[in-house]
Every structure is written in structure tokens, then in C-alpha cells.
């Protein structure tokens, strides 16, 4: 239990150890360090509920499916804007965007749009902008956002000029269909939603989701499908 906690929270454990050593050797410095930290702890507590609420609303109410179905090879500027919106209103780290982009490529989206989705997904996140403005100032945030947005569109243009579809690995249909439920471990963000929604099918171990019921009956399959749609990283595949 303790070993698991230490492994999952390496940084926190290290910092806590330093504080304990300090408390014994230089208690004055330890108190000073806590006081210095408190300013940032308070700032975080002020902004975190806002980030939480905004992320929840975006996750629950932005019609991602409608955005994705607007993509196509020749959707031009409209496609670029959709790509930008999709990336901006998504949560999760950049690798969570990989499966989504694979799907877009398979649907005929252009390479420029894939670059736009990947980059905005990584950098421009609406709730994160609130967080950035809190710690570095609204002007800093707005300038960086504007410059990054321009850069992303220039990069998308350059990459699309240089990289063609033939340079990409074939977007193959998954060979093993009908195999049941699978999780792309490298995409899983460890949020635990699947294990909460379908504890019969999914479980959490070492901060990642795992399938415990690989060959579900049709009813369980339906349940798994519904759960897969709620996965923020789109890491669950049901077929």
C-alpha cells in the first residue's frame, strides 16, 4: 500500500522527505519554505475550482461527434477551424489525441488538420488558459495564445507540404475484430471513469485501466460501448 503510494507519487514523496529532514535539522528554514509555498497553494485553490467546472462543462457538453463528422479531405478553412476547436475543447495529454487523429485520417481528414488538432490539443486548452492567466497574468496568457495559434497554422501548412499520405503508416482496420474489449494502455490517462461505470468489465491497477472481462456477452458489450464513449482519452475499443 505504502510502496504503491510512493511509486505513484515520486515527486511528492521526495519533497515530503526533504521537508521532514529540514524540520529536524533546520526547522526555521522548513517553516519559511512552507510559508513561501502557501502563496502558490492559495493561488491554486483559487483557480482550481474554475478549471474543474470549465473542464466538466466542456467534457459534458461540447458536441465532439458533430465536430468530428464535419471533417473531410476538402473541407478547407472550415476544416481548419473545426480542427482548432476540437483540439482546444479537449482534455487530456497529447497522446490521448493520437487515436482521435488516426480516426480522422481514416475518415479522410487532411494532414494539415491532423497537425492542427495535435498541436492545439497539446497547447491550447481553454480551462488551462484560465490557470495560465492566474499564475503568469492575463496579458502573458493572451499574447502566448495568439502567437501559438499563428504558429500552429504555419506549421500545419509546412508539414502538409512536406509530408504526404504515403509517408504515413497505412491506416489499417484493426485486424482482430470481434475480439471483445481492449484498452490502448499508452493512451489511458488513468482517470478511472471506466472502472466506475462498469466495474464488471474494467478495473484500475497501477494507475491504468485494465480489462477483466475480455469476452463479454451482448448486453455487457453494449455497456462497454457506452463506457468507451465516456473515456476522455478514447482508449477503449469495443468490437
Amino acid at each position, binding site marked *: 500500500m505504502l510502496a504503491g503510494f510512493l511509486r505513484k507519487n515520486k515527486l511528492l514523496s521526495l*519533497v515530503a522527505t526533504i521537508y521532514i529532514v529540514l524540520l529536524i535539522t533546520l526547522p526555521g528554514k522548513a517553516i519559511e519554505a512552507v510559508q513561501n509555498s502557501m502563496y502558490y497553494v492559495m493561488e491554486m485553490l483559487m483557480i482550481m475550482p474554475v478549471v474543474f467546472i470549465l473542464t466538466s462543462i466542456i467534457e459534458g457538453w461540447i458536441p465532439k461527434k458533430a465536430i468530428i463528422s464535419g471533417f473531410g479531405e476538402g473541407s478547407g478553412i472550415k476544416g481548419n477551424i473545426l480542427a482548432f476547436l476540437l483540439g482546444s475543447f479537449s482534455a487530456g495529454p497529447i*497522446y490521448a489525441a493520437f487515436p482521435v487523429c488516426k480516426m480522422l485520417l481514416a475518415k479522410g481528414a487532411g494532414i494539415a488538420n491532423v497537425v492542427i488538432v495535435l498541436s492545439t490539443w497539446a497547447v491550447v486548452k481553454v480551462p488551462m488558459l484560465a490557470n495560465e492567466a*492566474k499564475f503568469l497574468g492575463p496579458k502573458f496568457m493572451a499574447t502566448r495564445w495568439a502567437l501559438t495559434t499563428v504558429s500552429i497554422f504555419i506549421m500545419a501548412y509546412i508539414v502538409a507540404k512536406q509530408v504526404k499520405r504515403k509517408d504515413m503508416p497505412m491506416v489499417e482496420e484493426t485486424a482482430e475484430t470481434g475480439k471483445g474489449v481492449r484498452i490502448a494502455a499508452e493512451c489511458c490517462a488513468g482517470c478511472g471513469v471506466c472502472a466506475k461505470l462498469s466495474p464488471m468489465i474494467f478495473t484500475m491497477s497501477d494507475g491504468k485501466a485494465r480489462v477483466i472481462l475480455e469476452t463479454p456477452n451482448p448486453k455487457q458489450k453494449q455497456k462497454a460501448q457506452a463506457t468507451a464513449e465516456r473515456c476522455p482519452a478514447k482508449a477503449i475499443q469495443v468490437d
Partner: protein
Amino acid sequence: MRLPKMDPFTLSLWVIALIALLFFLAKDRKRTLGSMQMTKGMMGGLLGELTGILFLIGLILTFVPPETIKAGLGQSNVVLASILAAVAGSVTLIPAFVAFPLVGSLVNVGASIVPAVAFLTTLTMVGLVTFPLEKREFGQKFALYRNGLSFVFALVIAWIMGVLK
């Protein structure tokens, strides 16, 4: 002890967020609560790292004198500091959510914003750790171009922000 005050910007964000929350709760309570639960799971996973970073800031501010931070990350050797910061951002994979307070604290005690921007931008846009995965999914040429260009543009963005300031 110096504590932050609620500034008008944060206050307005609170008002917007709360109004939006009430609106969507009224519209579909179950759906909104469901997505809040999912977000709780996602953000809950970050709490350990976040607490670690926040208390690490206190240690840095206590033991590293501001003059040292100014000398290392300040205006005097901004080019080298920015390139190193961009490299550091490329190899680390910590969520930006956790990086903002750390970078903000360094800027507050005199670090230049140019390396700060370089670090924040490569942190999210360039991924050395995720490069093999990106290469597998989209091919080597795509991954090289996207990451390489992102690195260069991060430095350009940082430089422009330094000039504008």
C-alpha cells in the same frame, strides 16, 4: 506571510464558471454531474504531483537566492537559458497545469519570460517521451517535422514575447 488576493480577473472567471454550471445543471443534471465525476477522476490523478510541485516551489524560493535565479535565468544569458529551457520542456512530460505555478514563481523572483515561454511551449507541444508512439501512429517523417517545427516555433514565440514585453 504574503497571501494572494482575489483579483478581478479570477473573480470574473468564478462568476462565469458558476453561472455556466448552474445553467447546465438546470438543463441536464445527470449529464453535467456525470462529466463532473469524470473530470474529478482526471484531475484527482494530478493532485499528488501538484502538491509536490507547490511545496517544491517553497524549497526553491527559500534556498535559491533570487540573485542566483536572476543570474541563471535572467536577462544576462537569455539565449542559452532559453535553449536549455526548450530542451528541458521537450524531455519532461508533466502536465501544464502543474508547470504554471512553478514557472510563475520563477518569473516572480526575476527569471526572464523568454526561457519561461520556451519551456511552457515545448513542454506541451514537443514530446520526446511520446515520440516513438507518434512515429508509430503517423510515421517518422511526420513526427520529425511536427516536433522539430514545434521546437523552433517555441523559441520564436519566446523571442517575440521577450521583444514585446
